[in-house]
């Protein structure tokens, strides 16, 4: 299941999940930035966990529930994490952004009120060369506030 839709495909065992998502399912929102699983641009949520889809074989996603960046917005309306990034200039070129959003979402679902240190640590697996992380951290803090406010309503 990817973004609440079921898919069934045959793949070579060595096909990486990231290539499967991008090439077979045409979900090109998740990106490839490196070969060794260090940049985090390929981060998705699989079975509730933020994982690097380049470090997972497509076959391992058999029966899994996957959320990619394309599955965040609903009915043309941005997800509250996406909103927070947009309001706080949390992206510049946008290449690392889908992965950042996923790591941020995973963090906030486990820890809705993270400290700055906790945010930085949670994003330690997502490299960004444009922002210097300053506004990314601000965006996650804003998302955390939005979450609190949403919960109070």
């Amino acid at each position, binding site marked *: 299941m990817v973004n609440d839709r079921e898919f069934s495909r045959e793949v070579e065992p060595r096909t990486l999940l990231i290539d499967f998502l991008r090439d077979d399912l045409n979900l090109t929102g998740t990106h490839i930035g490196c*070969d060794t699983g260090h940049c985090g641009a390929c981060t998705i949520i699989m079975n509730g966990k933020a994982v690097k889809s380049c470090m997972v074989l497509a076959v391992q996603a058999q029966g899994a529930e996957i959320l990619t960046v394309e599955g965040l917005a609903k009915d043309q309306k941005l997800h509250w994490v996406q909103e927070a990034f947009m309001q706080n200039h949390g992206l510049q070129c946008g290449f690392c952004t889908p992965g950042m959003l996923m790591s941020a979402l995973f963090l906030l679902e486990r820890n809705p009120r993270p400290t700055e240190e906790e945010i930085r640590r949670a994003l*330690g697996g997502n490299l960004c060369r444009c922002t210097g992380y300053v506004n990314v951290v601000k965006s996650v803090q804003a998302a955390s506030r939005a979450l609190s406010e949403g919960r109070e309503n």
Partner: protein
Amino acid sequence: MIPKKFDYYAPTSLTETIQLLSENEGARLLAGGQSLLGLMKLRLAAPTALVDISKLPGLSYVREDRDHLSIGALTTHDTIEHNSTIQEKFMILSEAASKIGDQQTRNLGTIGGSACHADPAADLPTVLRVLDAGFVMQGRKGERIVPAQDLFVDMFTTAVGHGEVLTEIRLPYLPPTSASAYMKHSLRENDVAIVLAGTVLTVGDGNMCRDARIGLGAAGPIPLRATTAEQYLKDRILDEATLKEGAQRAVEGANPPSDMHGSKRYKLEVLKVLTNRSLSLSLSRIKSCGM
């Protein structure tokens, strides 16, 4: 970026797993995949078959048995980091797990995988060595338990036999007045260690050392126990001077390689610092528990 071809199996039982491994000479186990897949993508490893055990049931747990804590081999680093029993009884392990890579890696990487991968610079192997862990293997001939001192044979080489699967890691409980600490030196937070040190101290009245364990990592092909230093500290009063001397002795058997991160001399100096700080932290943790 794309691995060489391999056959893929996803067994549903341990028996099936053992059979597949026994029958396929070039087969390797796939657990979290965070180390193995990395090597395969760079084509530094090319197993002919992968036996995927990541979904095998019943191998992910933290269980308090009578004399030891039992941790299932497929327990993830993230679980280990946050497990309250591990934090209480084996802080060094929780700390070490927290310093592995990044959140995504910790979400999938497993303690069993890390132990069997036996990377000299990895966080867990040295810690498991310091904790005198026992490694439970299942194979065609049944079950056997390998002690930590025998598990790590060489870099990236363990005593896990052909057709064997590591299923559980057992940590003997530490005596009541004990504490532990993990220290790692790396360029950036959570980078692969340049050098690392883990210590366990058991202390009696007046800071008299009952037992000291010092493990050094990235200081040779396998995790090192600094037994000379451990002997020195035992039955001594632990204070600034003895800890300093202990740290000095600890690095005497260490042999970190000179590389682009620094010379051997530099790494030995840092190891001394880490050992001392780790010992100090362990000691302060005992004190702070009001023992």
